[in-house]
């Protein structure tokens, strides 16, 4: 029995390892190819370590006359940074209101917000275009940042996490004469750092990876984001596989690195996010 269990475990490990390799092979291929000259990318059999190691693909990426890759990179970094920063405060502030203040109509309003999660985003793309135009934020990064703050999902998650902070703690602060603003900022916010970190990380990947937003709402080339940029770049250099892989690498690397270092927040954040019926 014991032996059979061990053999079974090995078999399952190998199966799972194969699945895992399928999942990460494209990334390995990408990174390895980004250091190869284009002719070698398509060589069979595939070499993990390039025969002629080269940085030219990356240098070419940031120094080509056609596309301003650097500018796109800076845009995306600034947009993503603002997005995370605003969201951390904005969403947690709202979640505090929905969890720690007992006001009239709270649960009804929250229910309405939750049901709005059902609305597919496709339906919003046109009206939002008109609204952005009237707010004069069309073709600016604010058209990407501001709507992303209306993230019902994370208001819901943070609310859950705030509720799990025992009422006695905020009660004690209140007796000491703290108002809601101070309880939020000095008690609840610090106690919920893991949940807020999870939100920040997911917001980072969503903002960084967003394609539809910049594709639809940003038209000036110099204001464009990486997601759209990398597609333009790749379709402009059809045969230059090495450069394409280098472009994909610089777009993917920040998120993959963030993931490698903060896996716990990503995965446990999802697992504990209260999919409990």
């Amino acid at each position: 029995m014991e032996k059979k269990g061990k053999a079974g475990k090995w078999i399952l490990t190998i199966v799972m390892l194969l699945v895992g390799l399928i999942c990460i092979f494209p990334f390995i291929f990408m990174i390895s190819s980004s250091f190869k000259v284009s002719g070698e990318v398509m060589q069979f059999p595939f070499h993990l370590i390039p025969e002629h190691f080269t940085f030219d693909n990356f240098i070419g990426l940031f120094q080509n006359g056609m596309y301003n890759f650097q500018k796109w990179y800076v845009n995306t970094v600034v947009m993503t940074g603002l997005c995370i920063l605003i969201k951390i405060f904005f969403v947690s502030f709202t979640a505090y209101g929905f969890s720690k203040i007992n006001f009239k109509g709270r649960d009804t309003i929250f229910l309405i917000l939750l049901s709005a999660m059902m609305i597919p985003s496709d339906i919003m793309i046109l009206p939002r275009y008109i609204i952005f135009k009237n707010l004069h934020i069309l073709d600016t990064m604010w058209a990407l940042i501001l709507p992303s703050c209306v993230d019902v999902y994370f208001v819901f998650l943070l609310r859950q996490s705030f509720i799990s902070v025992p009422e006695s703690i905020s009660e004690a602060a209140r007796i000491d004469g703290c108002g809601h603003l101070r309880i939020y900022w000095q008690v609840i916010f610090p106690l919920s750092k893991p949940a807020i970190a999870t939100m920040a990380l997911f917001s980072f990947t969503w903002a960084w990876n967003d394609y539809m937003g910049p594709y639809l709402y940003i038209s000036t080339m110099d204001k464009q984001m990486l997601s759209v940029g990398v597609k333009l770049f790749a379709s402009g250099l059809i045969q230059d596989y090495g450069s394409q892989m280098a472009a994909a690498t610089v777009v993917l690397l920040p998120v993959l690195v963030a993931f490698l270092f903060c896996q716990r927040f990503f995965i446990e954040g999802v697992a504990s996010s209260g999919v409990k019926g």
Partner: protein
Amino acid sequence: MKSQKKVKMKTSKAQKKENRAGYLFIMPYLIFFIVFTGIPFLMAIGLSFLNVKYITRLDDLKFVGLNNFIKMFQSKEIVDSLFRTFEYALVYVPLIMIVGFALAMILNRGVFAKNALRSMAFMPYVSNIVAVAVIFKVLLGSNSPIIQGLKSMGFDPPLLLMDLKLALPTVATVAVWKGVGLNMVVYLGALQGVPTELMEAAQIDGATKWQRVRNVVIPLVSPTTFFLLISSIIGSLQNFTIIQALTEGGPGQATTVMSVNIVRTAFMKYDTSLASAMAMVMFIIVMIITLIQWRGQKKWVNY
């Protein structure tokens, strides 16, 4: 008596203060919600009954009733794209549900280096789909090392993204590759909640492995299945980015699903109202599916 009244007055005064504080806290969010979700939603409904062409020109508005919807269902091109959306969902939803569950079961049964393997499978979920598409286009294109490898072994592999029949299932499969990590992790969380005593009891009663999975595990994780099913169905309709990145709706019209068609109709053909009607139909479909699930859940979801 008097003092009681006083207390009551005091609480209501405190309650008023709470009310004010509460609304102050949620007001900024509510304003954003109304501007970026509430109003757009109402506008979408309105637009689908009007005759707006070109997004920016709103003069000469006319109420045209259901004309946009009639026009939509009379257009073979649009109906075809609607069916392609269903086709896509029929590949995507079962695949992501089954693979996600199977991977979670494997991880839960116990493997070596569990966390590392779990992270490997989750990695595609956080990646940028456009960059991933650049890689997949090279890997699945002619002359890629994979294709050459298969050819050298005597196979004649089709160019999946260029094939009229295979492009759509291929795109759906890439979407599963990207998204399955999330389903897996959520299922894993649910499986860890299955009490071991229950499994042992079933084992003692002589239930086979398969019976235990079917009669103990699956019913116990059914709330999770319900949640994931709905979000996978909704996810399968919102596939604009992955299709735009991989095939741009081609070859021919082979992967032009509704989401792609809506954007095209709105931003390239400038038929604002028709695009809104198309989006409305998608919304209604999501609503109906969700409602059916909601009513049906009593039959198979155990809380």
